[in-house]
């Protein structure tokens, strides 16, 4: 029993270490004074100021636009690539897969700098387009890595059966193959979107004047010191991620339940 409480106690302390800074951060976002040491009463003024801050709003806009476009484009290119890679012979396949792993394993800063060298070399002005291209590039490998296992699990006979029963290849693909690989595609898309929103290092080297994502804005504000608006922003971001995760978890457990029901009915 003592041992059990020791274990619990240790985990409790570790969670306190992990969460205390986040909680303190959120707590002081409601503080009416700028000071971090003292509490001067509850206020929402930092939230109001945050929503009036043009810089924060435009960078939120850029983060979302780049996140959506880059994850969708990366999902299309990556899913197609996964099909092609699956059909390749051993040598080209290992070559392409090693090149796919390179940006995943490479330190972010090296990836970011190599993109920057490329854009300057081909005289593309650093800005929205370069930011988008670099995000697509670092997202594709994650899509491939989540779609490829699904394609490998595909039962070829199903596709051929559909063709034998008179389906055109396009219909067979849409009705048989696509539903099978969809979970992998969705995972890849969500992963790509999250990584794009979260990225700082690669964006930092590939953005030009006027265009900045949320991460870049937070960095430039944090470098100048404490700013309660960042507290408000991070509290909001943490709460939205929390809600999103809860929703995804609920959806997944509901799916699982209905599937279990279905399989029971079949049995």
């Amino acid at each position, binding site marked *: 029993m003592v041992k*059990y409480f020791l*274990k*619990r106690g*240790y*985990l409790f302390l*570790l*969670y306190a*270490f*992990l*969460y205390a*800074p*986040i909680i*303190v*951060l959120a707590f002081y976002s409601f503080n009416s004074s700028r*000071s971090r*040491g003292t509490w001067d009463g509850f206020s929402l003024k930092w939230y109001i100021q945050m929503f009036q801050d043009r810089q924060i709003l435009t960078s939120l806009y850029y983060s979302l636009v780049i996140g959506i476009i880059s994850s969708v484009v990366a999902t299309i290119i*990556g899913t*197609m*690539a996964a*099909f*092609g*890679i699956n*059909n*390749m012979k051993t040598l*080209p396949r290992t070559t*392409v897969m090693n*090149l*796919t792993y*390179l940006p995943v*394993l*490479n*330190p*972010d*800063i*090296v990836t970011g*700098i*190599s*993109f920057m*060298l*490329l854009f300057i*070399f081909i005289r593309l002005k650093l800005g929205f387009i370069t930011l988008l291209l*670099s995000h697509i*590039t670092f997202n594709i490998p994650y899509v491939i*890595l989540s779609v490829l296992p699904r394609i490998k699990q595909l039962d*070829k006979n199903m*596709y051929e059966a559909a063709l034998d029963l008179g389906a055109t290849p396009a219909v067979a693909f849409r009705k048989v193959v696509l539903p099978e690989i969809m979970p992998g595609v969705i995972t890849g898309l969500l992963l790509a979107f999250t990584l794009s929103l979260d990225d*700082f*290092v690669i964006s930092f*080297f590939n953005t030009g004047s006027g265009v900045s994502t*949320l*991460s870049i804005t*937070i960095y430039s504000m*944090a*470098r100048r010191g*404490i700013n309660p608006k*960042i507290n408000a922003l*991070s509290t909001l*971001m*943490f709460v939205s991620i*929390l809600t999103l995760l809860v929703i995804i978890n609920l959806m997944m457990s509901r799916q699982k339940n209905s599937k279990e029901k279905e399989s029971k009915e079949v049995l």
Partner: protein
Amino acid sequence: MKKTWAAYPYIFWIIIFTIVPMGLLIYFSITVKTPTGTIISMDNFRRFTEPIYLKVLARSLTLAAISTVCCLLLGYPAALFLSSRDLRHKNTMVLLMVLPMWMNFLLRTYAWLTLLERKGLINTLLGKIGIPPLNLLYNDFAVVLGMVYNFLPFMVLPIYSVLSKIDHSLIEAAEDLGADPLRTFLKVRLPLSLPGVMSGITMVFMPAVTTFVISRLLGGGQYTLIGNLIEQQFLTVGDWNFGSAISLMMMLIILIGMGFTSRYEKEQEGGGLW
């Protein structure tokens, strides 16, 4: 379905956005600009062996190693306790370990800024009990703390996933054969969890060596790790050749390190995050 054309756009993309940039990085690292033009030279690499740069490298490696050891010492017991069978609400506890990873790492780092600064919460609390304010920020301590805080879940999760996959009958067998808990741990659990420890070490050490954000925010403007050195060469000094050479060396160090640990993991069926 034996066609490979679907991969052609991606192959085209790889050539432009992976191969050409790497080629440019190598090109810049082996050339230097002289008044008469650009010439091939190993000067950039030679320059890296000057004491001031070696010191930066040594400092980066040391701090990353210290952070990795701290993460291992803090994280291994946590993974062990999380994987124990009598723990209630296990799924919630594991989820709580993952959750901070979903928060932007800039914000996690910034959170410590507000705690550690001179007028921050810790110093205010210390002041209340009569202790004069301490310089908690802008030193090695703050940087290591930031690294441990940011990367701790990356150590816990792989170890946890390996530990929870261990066949429990092995542990029962050891107990039946008369081993006490310590001996069971040393002879069964610990050796079987080593692949997880290896991937944990990789996943903490690698980002810790290359970070430039944690060192800039918690170490202050003058604080230089290898990542800051690269950033400076490209964004303030403008010496792309030297910057490329450092980047290339760092990339090689990381990839060789990964090669070692991934070989080890393959042999041992290790648990990664993916």
